[in-house]
């Protein structure tokens, strides 16, 4: 099992969710985060004084899938989240030791 962690632009969330649905991935966890990579922040101005905002709003999508689905999932997320402009984000693949369904107690891939 692998944890797919994707940092994407916030307005892409709906598209990513639909792309995942199409390949049969139904569950995910989404959080609102801030961050930057090589994309610089922007400048804001208040009462005549400027200041830079380095941390930009992003969305983090986390999905745990079985090993066979990993590359399909990564492709689906990347394809849906891509705009071609700087700041599109990144996808990380992290190994998962175990997964447990709380309601039934199942574990392993059956819990996914």
């Amino acid at each position, binding site marked *: 099992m692998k944890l797919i962690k994707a940092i994407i632009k916030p307005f892409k969330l709906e598209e990513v969710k639909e792309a995942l649905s199409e390949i049969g991935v139904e569950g995910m966890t989404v959080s609102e985060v801030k961050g930057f990579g090589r994309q610089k922040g922007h400048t*804001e*101005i*208040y*009462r*005549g*004084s*400027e*200041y830079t905002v380095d941390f930009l709003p992003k969305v983090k999508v986390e999905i745990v899938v079985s090993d066979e689905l990993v590359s399909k999932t990564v492709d689906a997320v990347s394809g849906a989240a891509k705009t071609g402009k700087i700041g599109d984000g990144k996808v990380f693949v992290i190994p998962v030791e175990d997964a447990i369904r709380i309601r039934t107690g199942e574990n392993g891939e059956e819990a996914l």
Partner: protein
Amino acid sequence: MKTPLKYPPFKIILALLCGMMSFVPISSAEDEAAYDPAANLEQLKSSLDGASAEDKVAIESQISTLEYAISNEIPLSSGFTDDGAGSASILEGYLGISGGVGTEYEYGADFFTVSMLWTVIAAALVFLMHLGFATLESGLCQQKNVVNVLFKNVFIISIGVVTYALIGFNTHYPLGDWSGGIEGWLKLGSPLNTLDDTGAETFGGADLSYGPGVGLCMTGLGDFIFQAMFAATGATIVSGAVAERVKLTSFMIFAVVFVGLAYPIAGSWHWGGGVLAGMDFKDFAGSTVVHAFGGFGALACVLVLGPRKGKYQSDGTIKPIPPHSFPLAAIGVFLLMFGWYGFNGGSVLSADPGPLGLVFTTTTLAAATGALGAIATSWIMMKKPDLSMGLNGILAGLVGITANADVVSVGDSLLIGLIAGGIVVVSIIAFDKAKIDDPVGAISVHGVCGIWGTIAVSIFGDGFSMATQIKGALLVSAFAFVFAYAVFYVLKVTIGVRVSEEEEDRGLDICEHGQEAYGE
């Protein structure tokens, strides 16, 4: 002109004048003979013969209206001609309008009741300004200090009206008795206690028949409650300027003496018939005695208190501390403007239609050009349109018109607001450059524009001396500044006026109140 007309000779002269006025019909230029309702009635009745069916319906309605007016002794200056032309409906709102554009109205029955009604509604509108202050200040501060800002606002309105009831109202209006101590000025118990529990008594003016300028067109309690709502606005102006780093208990002590003592003392010099009134100083609704008073008190406190941590960097740059909620701030400004209709409109002190319409118009137009002036100025200076400047511009225009709303024309009010809008932007930037930290711009909006509004009286109004206006504005502003500085400085060296740096970092909500503004 808020002095109760207590002095007997003045009252007699006024009563005589009004008695004489009732014999002078107010009429348009075309009328030569005085209007005779009975003759008009006969004329209408005889025109019924030979009139068509639909004309008859109209004439009969005119006849019954005229009969009603005659039997109820409502004064009329003109009536219906036999062809129905040339007059507006006589009894519309109990006022007579005798012709087309340019003719004057006359006062109908029950002027006192309507005036009192308007006064209490205006008092409620001025109260609403506290809601405006609460939302504006909390919108412009950081989320971690919202509870503290709101708490200060709750305290100020409460202590404001209570101290005004106990000591403020009397100090504000000593009614000619300037001797100090228990019986004179600064007297506890105030004229309030002399009014009986029915609420029916008035201050001065025995003749309560319709007509403005005859006594005070409201009951004693109506007068009190309207003025009481004004009192707390002085301290609330200060609360915005000291927000986010002031120590709560110190501020509460300061507010009690500032509203309880300083405000009515300063106000007594003008509206209470004191030295400024003697100089013919003009301040219609309080650009000086409320706004400049609050603004320069705020300046004094900010100088003693110091800026928020991190605002002014050692290399000279200014690190802005942006507001946590622009929607709240905008709502606050619109509420303040709404309440200002009571602030200025109620200061007419009656339902006198002429001044009321004028004041509502000038107030609105000044607010509008205030916004436009501030928007234009800030857009040019800072290259981008700044919402907070536009909001401050509305308030600047309102403060600017507050001294002169009843003596300037429509065109004047457009200019007064526009100039106030420009002034406030420049002032806000200047104070920031001088490292005087004012989170809401209170010093610029109320202090600087309050002085502008006071001086504008002499520029745009007729017959006012600029020297007097300047003197009055400076007197009250200096008094407020010195008083506030002294009190706040004493507080600083005794119990301190500022929270610790750690408390400022963590936020006053958690540290002073143990509460969060936006819970889970």
